[in-house]
């Protein structure tokens, strides 16, 4: 079994992170903007904190890490499921599901279920788009898994 290709993992992870950042920027600043304002209002969270430069920078870094994680997952499961977009979608869905479960635990308390569902769908789109982009870049010298 060939080893994980570290260089391609980083390259794919960066591309995936860029794609996920674009998806999340559009989701949170346009599609979910009024939802976040509503949540901030009912949960006593300062909207200035939620949209401060430091939190935006944090989310950019978080998405880059998630991009690396999605491609790492793709590389890790490739010998089992084979290379290609099908496996990339499985990897993206695995990372998405872990995040969605966390969001669901927040839907019990902090969020509302309708925000969770809308946010979850957009999070799924982001994870799958990132996984497909990152998986497309990732390659191994030994193509026989």
């Amino acid at each position, binding site marked *: *079994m060939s080893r*994980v290709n570290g260089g391609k993992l980083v390259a794919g992870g960066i591309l995936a992170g860029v794609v996920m950042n674009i998806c999340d920027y559009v989701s949170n600043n346009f599609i979910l903007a009024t939802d976040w304002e509503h949540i901030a209002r*009912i*949960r*006593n*969270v*300062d909207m200035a*904190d*939620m949209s401060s430069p*430091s*939190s935006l920078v*944090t*989310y950019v870094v*978080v998405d880059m*890490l*998630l991009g690396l*994680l999605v491609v*790492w*997952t793709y*590389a*890790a*499961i*490739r*010998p*089992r*499921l084979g290379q290609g977009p099908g496996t990339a979608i*499985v990897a993206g869905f*695995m*990372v998405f*599901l*872990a*995040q969605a*479960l*966390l*969001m*669901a*635990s*927040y*839907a*019990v*308390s*902090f969020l509302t279920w309708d925000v969770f569902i809308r946010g979850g769908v957009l999070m799924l789109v982001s994870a799958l788009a990132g996984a497909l982009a990152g998986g497309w870049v990732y390659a191994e010298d030994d193509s026989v*898994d």
Partner: protein
Amino acid sequence: MASINTGRVVVGGLVGGVVANACDFLWNMTIMKDDMTAMAQRFGMDPAAMQSMSAAAPWIVIDFVMGLLTVFAYAAMRPRFGPGPKTALIAGITLYLAVTAILYGFTSMGMMPMGAFGRGSATSLVTVILGSLAGAAVYKEA
């Protein structure tokens, strides 16, 4: 390449879910108790309602689904890293990092104090390690 043993994923996931639920119950009654109460008050919620069975039920289900996901990840990663506890930890920590990254983002947005994030992340790491090792110990392939 042998296919994933679905039956064992389910059994292993249930075992992992039981372990995760036991850990989370312990953390929420001890280390995280004051943090949970403080966050409930801050978010304008009734702390008693947050500790009710109706509030706990989704958490229980979430831990079981996470257990299934972790054992599936272990099964999917096994051909790459080999069977055993090392691969179980890789599977569990991969998913743990995805969750913790998002939680850190929430913290930076002011939804959670940094101290609570640190304690929650540390206790979750212990939960993930124990749950993934338990679940993976059950998983077998022909």
